[in-house]
């Protein structure tokens, strides 16, 4: 077994009463001393929550062919990006299944930055470097040098502005800026995984503790993995290993909106495109839906979903949503059950009635 990694903020998490668990190869806090619910509430109720998400990976893509390369390896249309814009996207295998979901940051025509999932980092980098051989482009894994923080919630901008060397008001939704942050430099994007207004902050490890301490002093509440998962599940955001994996394509996962089968000027097809087109034409074997329990209970991952008494699929992410006032879940069901039939979730042997709904499960406050 390989040793677990620590982020530069490990000691800070322990000092704050963080309950440390192994996660994606790192030792990270699942919650701090006041518990996940209070952390969740702080983010939803107008505070600013601070998250150490340094485990996520960063890859720099540079070179004359950067755009052509990214059009080939990612699903979304990278030509639509302007400098300083972020795009949600994915890396697919030739089979059309997910290698990872990512965000693409366009610095300029010949320089991009990808944010990838921790658990997929080595697989992603190997894949990107292999494919890069056919292009005039370099792929550099900068994950080990980079600390990534998220600051989410209504008070995020005011707190972050105290250390940002540029006006955050000018950074729009899914936009980013580079410049001075505290005593060094970095990238700030108006992105996140909570459904609240907020930012993700890429800085060198050398100033991780400095930035963390300043933001805590500004009133930011430290948020662990459990509350982070509650916040993302309430938004219905996909998580690798749950809604998406190497066994599903964008057709099943309701992610055709980031999968552009016609990328305009881009000649040829991105990796996995043919398989996605085939799957789309033939029809998926299962499809992702959002559901809310009518009966009492918490629909948890892997619980079976039935339609008219017939086994149809299973829950991929589920929770008790304080704001929705009950159990909510994302689940895969058979395509014919996406809109029709009486839905139930099996909880400890009992069929609990549920209804189809849409995501987000609760109101999103992102600033579009």
């Amino acid at each position, binding site marked *: 077994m390989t040793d677990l990694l620590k982020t530069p903020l490990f000691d800070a998490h322990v000092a704050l009463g963080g309950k440390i668990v192994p996660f994606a190869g790192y030792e990270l806090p*699942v*919650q701090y001393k006041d*518990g*996940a*619910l*209070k952390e969740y509430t702080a983010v939803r109720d107008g505070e600013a929550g601070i998250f150490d998400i340094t485990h996520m990976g960063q890859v720099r893509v540079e070179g004359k062919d950067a755009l052509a390369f990214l059009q080939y390896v990612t699903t979304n249309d990278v030509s639509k990006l302007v400098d300083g814009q972020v795009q949600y996207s994915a890396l697919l295998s030739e089979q059309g299944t997910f290698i990872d979901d990512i965000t693409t940051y366009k610095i300029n025509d010949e320089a991009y930055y990808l944010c990838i999932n921790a658990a997929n980092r080595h697989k992603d980098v190997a894949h990107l470097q292999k494919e890069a051989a056919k292009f005039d482009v370099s792929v550099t894994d900068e994950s080990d040098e980079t600390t990534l923080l998220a600051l989410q919630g209504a008070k995020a901008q005011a707190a972050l502005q105290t250390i940002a060397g540029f006006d955050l008001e000018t950074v729009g939704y899914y936009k980013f800026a580079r410049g001075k942050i505290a005593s060094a430099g970095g990238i700030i994007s108006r992105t996140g995984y909570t459904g609240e207004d907020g930012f993700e902050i890429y800085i060198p490890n050398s100033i991780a503790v400095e930035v963390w301490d300043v933001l805590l002093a500004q009133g930011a509440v430290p948020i662990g993995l*459990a*509350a982070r998962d*509650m916040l993302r599940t309430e938004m219905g955001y996909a998580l690798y290993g749950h809604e998406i994996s190497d066994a599903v394509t964008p057709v099943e996962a309701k992610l055709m909106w980031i999968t552009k089968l016609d990328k305009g000027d881009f000649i040829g097809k991105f990796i996995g495109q043919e398989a996605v087109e085939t799957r789309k034409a033939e029809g998926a074997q299962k499809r992702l839906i959002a559901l809310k329990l009518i009966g*009492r*209970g*918490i629909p*948890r991952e892997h619980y079976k979903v039935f339609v008219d008494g017939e086994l149809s699929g299973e829950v991929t992410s589920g*929770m*008790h949503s*304080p704001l929705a006032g009950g159990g909510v879940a994302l689940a895969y069901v058979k395509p014919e059950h996406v809109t029709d039939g009486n839905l139930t979730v099996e909880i*400890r042997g009992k069929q609990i009635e549920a209804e189809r709904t849409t995501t987000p499960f609760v109101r999103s406050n992102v600033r579009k």
Partner: protein
Amino acid sequence: MSVPTDLRYTKEHEWVRIEGDTATFGISDHAQEALGDIVFVELPEVGRSIDAGEAYGVVESVKAVSDVYAPVAGEVIEINETLESEADLVNSDPYGAGWIIKVKISDNNADTDLMNPSEYESFLDE
């Protein structure tokens, strides 16, 4: 960690308060602390007979699902319905408002493995 002196405890961190032929069940301060924020409690039906050591309900925190086990055998005579809307009472007041059920103790309760408070404190220290 609070361990009231008027209760008896089990190795699964349940407590029981015995008053005459009635027993009240709940989970200990240690148990609620270990589980974290409790968001759901599944209660048995009144009238159900439960053996000592039998799972009679479920307590769910944000991340975990845990069975709760009966410290003594009995028939359920009352359930704490308040927990259906305020599951967090198990966290905030585990020995008081966070009680889970009351049973009428069966005659066939053999000498069970209940710990007294000092034994439970030693058990927690192990």
